[in-house]
């Protein structure tokens, strides 16, 4: 199947997940918010943990069913993963959302905050890759 079509279907599945969560539980499918809630208020976070379990199982399930092999592990060093993790965690918590919460759900409900946040992290992501790949 065409690569773009597969990506598009993947996007639609993410949409379906977001709409289900909003329609039934009234919740926004923002991964960073779900993770923070799951860790800091575990007692009232059954739905968050179930969602996260589903997220992992779903990723595994896709490869198991489709026969598409796992992506090649990143060749970048572990310390780069550590630095990236701290920056991502810090940024999404301070900025109240990530690609899913701001990028998909926020823009989906026409939030100006989310639109600006998405443009900002897309821009700094692109600049960072440019600097790391084409300057150093």
């Amino acid at each position, binding site marked *: 199947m065409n690569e773009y079509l597969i*990506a598009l*279907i*993947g*996007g639609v*599945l*993410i*949409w*379906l*997940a*977001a*709409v289900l*969560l*909003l329609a039934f*539980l*009234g*919740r926004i*499918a923002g*991964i960073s918010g779900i*993770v923070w809630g799951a860790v800091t208020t575990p007692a009232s976070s059954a*739905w968050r943990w179930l*969602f996260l*379990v*589903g*997220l992992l*199982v*779903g*990723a595994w*399930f*896709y490869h198991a069913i489709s026969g598409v092999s796992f*992506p090649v*592990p*990143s060749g*970048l060093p572990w310390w780069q993963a*550590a*630095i*990236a*993790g*701290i*920056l*991502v*965690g810090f*940024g*999404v918590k*301070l*900025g109240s959302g*990530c690609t*899913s919460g701001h990028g998909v*759900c926020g*823009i*989906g409900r026409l*939030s*100006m*905050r989310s639109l*600006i946040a998405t443009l900002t*992290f897309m821009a700094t*992501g692109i600049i*960072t890759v*440019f600097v*790391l*790949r084409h300057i150093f």
Partner: protein
Amino acid sequence: MNKLIPLLAGLLFGVGLAMSGMTDTAKVLGFLDLFGNWDPTLAFVMGGAVATTLIGFRLVLRQSKPVCESEFQLPKNNKLDKPLLIGAAIFGIGWGVYGYCPGPGLAALVYLDGKTLVFVVALLIGMLLAHQTSQKEWIK
């Protein structure tokens, strides 16, 4: 329903991420490499998800309440403030450094690469640091 729906939503989300290539750091970095050998595939993921969400959310939010709960829990803050802009900028830098945003990073744990675990633990530490920072005066 209260248990089935979040599990199902998570499953769909996980399948969607893996299927679209968001859990492949090389693909994500190729997408962010706008000025190099740009790989536009992930624009279709975002485009597909955003376009359908625009319509889907509108229909859902027309209801007076969600099916299983008494009210919709939507973010109330609509100010373009310092934490939003600084946070989003820092998040984007981290995204570009390794190629994972939070969802794909978590989902990719099932590939059993040790560096993904490093990323996820660091992500939690970063969140904790931001939580402490957000209490400080200068950022408010």
